[in-house]
């Protein structure tokens, strides 16, 4: 018997069998309903990501103050979301416009490879490696995200601005009702920690380059008990300013 035949035989071992679900049809119907809701609007999904990102600082502020927080710390959505303006077109300020100097907010660049959901990357100019002040800065940025379109722009790199503009244009008050719970699984530099999914590292290094990767600070979070749904919020520091740039 060849190795291939043995493999074929072992793959057909009855050990692979699993018990069928007694409520299979109802279970699938429920899952289909969830999928329909989830895919009802791409805009809603984007809003959810940004909204969840806005909730993380609230939890971070309640957790231990260690710079690198691992493990599962459960947190609850803020009970009183801030006021949300009515939907209206949001205009992205051009490069070099007042209040947004080009040395801090240079034009975003296209990823080298289409390896991830990143549609834009931060410009590598002026980026700095994370330092001792980075954990605190990340908390501040997260805390500020979601308060207003202009204030979001001030704490974000231009590569995140299209996402923020579409979120604010669509209105964001629903986010706080949906976001629910999240657990912070990791907060730290992208470059060296096993707490960051390799797929995220690869996407940043291959898509945005080594300098962006070396400067990136990551917060990995997700719903309690569902690590497969983890998401990552990414930041860079440019000339002393910490900037949110992606939520993967």
């Amino acid at each position, binding site marked *: 018997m060849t190795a291939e035949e043995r493999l*074929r035989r072992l793959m057909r071992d009855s050990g692979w069998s699993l018990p069928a*679900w007694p409520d299979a049809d109802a279970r699938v119907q429920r899952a289909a309903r969830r999928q329909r809701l989830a895919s009802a609007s791409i805009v809603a999904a984007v809003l959810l990501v940004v909204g969840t990102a806005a909730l993380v600082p609230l939890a971070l502020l309640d957790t231990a103050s260690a710079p690198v927080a691992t493990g599962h710390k459960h947190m609850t959505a803020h009970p009183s979301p801030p006021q949300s303006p009515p939907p209206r077109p949001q205009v992205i300020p051009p490069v070099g416009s007042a209040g947004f100097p080009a040395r801090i907010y240079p034009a975003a660049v296209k990823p080298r490879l289409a390896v991830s959901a990143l549609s834009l990357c931060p410009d590598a100019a002026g980026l700095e490696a994370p330092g001792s002040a980075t954990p605190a800065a990340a908390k501040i940025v997260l805390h500020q995200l979601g308060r207003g379109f202009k204030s979001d722009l001030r704490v974000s790199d231009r590569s995140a601005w299209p996402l923020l503009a579409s979120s604010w244009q669509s209105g964001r008050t629903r986010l706080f009702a949906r976001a629910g719970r999240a657990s912070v699984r990791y907060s730290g530099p992208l470059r060296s920690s096993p707490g960051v999914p390799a797929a995220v590292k690869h996407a940043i290094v291959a898509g945005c380059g080594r300098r962006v990767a070396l400067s990136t600070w990551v917060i990995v979070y997700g719903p309690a008990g569902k690590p497969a749904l983890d998401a990552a919020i990414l930041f860079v520091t440019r000339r002393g300013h910490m900037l949110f740039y992606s939520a993967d």
Partner: protein
Amino acid sequence: MVETGPGKDSFGEFVAGALPGLLRFGHVLTGDPREAEDLVQEALARSLRRWHSVRSSDAVPYVRRAMVNTHITRWRRWEARVRLGHLPDRSIDDPELRRSEDWDRLRRALVRLPVRQRTVLVLRYYEDLPDTRIAQLMGCSPGTVRSQAARGLAALRPLLEPETVDRGATSDS
């Protein structure tokens, strides 16, 4: 004449009949019972949403294709779990699932393989699909399928030596 549109009424019957095979396929594909259940549930739910356009004779292949695509997409994003050494171990101590030492070794080895290699091996040796069909399913060339299969087989070869199988078969009998 091609029979089309099984309809929602028949979906429940389809699930009842096809579920054991789909769960088994998902288990081989993922190496983990819970992930297999999640995968089957997600693929069936996706299929239900497009059930009106599924030919009844193609329903099982359709769902299996959805499982493969979902599995690859999911692991493309989260394969770090494998690279970081995460091994699903929920079934290791389940005596009902430990049919044989060889099977358990194979399960562990399959889980350690990169997702594309594992998927190619499952489609080739469990589903008996030709390489051209596998390539079509996975969105790559037949040459890539062959190279992935060769690498996967090479990784598994120590487990597939004759004495390993013979010992497992003896202890299992």
